[in-house]
């Protein structure tokens, strides 16, 4: 699986994360969902909750409050009302 997913997480004040990742798990209003590269285009509103990003063997978690996720063939964009990286556990 050579393909990567272009992911960007932006809050109104700044871009929290942008880059190529392998998988993103996010909390949608109608259930959590995971996005892999070449996902079918779709769009959903988000609940408050953690967004987990997998890059190779690494995982990074962001706390996200409200907003939208937009999946296009170009990648995944999350427009969050508030977003911050969870402190490393």
């Amino acid at each position, binding site marked *: 699986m050579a393909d990567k997913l272009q992911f960007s997480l*932006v809050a109104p004040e700044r871009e929290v994360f942008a880059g190529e990742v392998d998988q993103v798990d996010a909390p949608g209003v109608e259930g959590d969902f995971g996005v892999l590269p070449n996902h079918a285009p779709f769009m959903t509103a988000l609940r408050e909750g953690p967004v987990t990003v997998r890059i190779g063997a690494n995982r990074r978690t962001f706390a996200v409050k409200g907003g939208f996720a937009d999946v296009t063939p170009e990648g995944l964009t999350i427009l969050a009302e508030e977003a911050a990286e969870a402190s490393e556990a």
Partner: protein
Amino acid sequence: MASLKEMRNRIGSVKATQKITKAMQMVAAAKLKRATEQAENARPYAQRMSAVIANLARGVTGDGAPKLLAGTGQDKKHLIVVATADKGLAGGFNSSIVRAARERIQHLINDGKDVSIIAVGRKANDQLRRLYGDRIIDRHLLSDHKILSLAAAQPVADRILSEFEAGNADVVTLFYSRYRSVISQVPTAKQLIPAVVDDGSEPVDLAGAAYEYEPSEEAILETLLPRNIAVQILAALYENQAGFFGAQMSAMDSATRNAGDMIAALTLSYNRQRQAQITKELIEIISGAEAL
């Protein structure tokens, strides 16, 4: 000709002024750096938001389209939002925004439209009050907020939306200053309602796949569009802030330089006058001595 003492005082006061303008310039320069960073950091969100809405808008057309996107179908009532800074001493920064807005307002009034105004920032209110005082329906001060965040833009957006829903506005336009560089800020008009979706970007190629929405397309648009207004206002406020400090910095720079020129000119004539006086006194002493 002013006396020597008067000139000395004059030079002293210009020097004091120069110190102030110099200090203001340096403060503005420091704040400019932060403000530009903030403006640049906020850009991706606003851009993505526009892109997402543009994308959605292509799918929703006809009667089903939300009013915020399609407009009320009328062009009678205009709401003009003028965003400036709270403070002055920044050259023509505030005035140029207000002038652009005033031209539009006058144009609309001449065309027989109903125009109402929301002033954001003290200077917008100050400069528009005299001409259009009865048209200003709401005022917002930026100094109420220590740092610019969505909390500053939200009340403005809420007011716009309530006016729109009450049927008091068909078209909403925002005036602000786009930050291009330290010495260049461009007064800009941006139409908020109906949302302008043609941002020149190519439609995203879905490669034949259909977009799926959770919940429905309409529900997403309905929450996204009001949010977009707040976000666009916030982006404008950030641009304004950066532009303001840029304008202030260059205004204070030239003020400092002018003060320097003035000090040089005053010092020259002060010295000349002092020398003239010394020469005069010498002549008096010499001719006094010769007379003895």
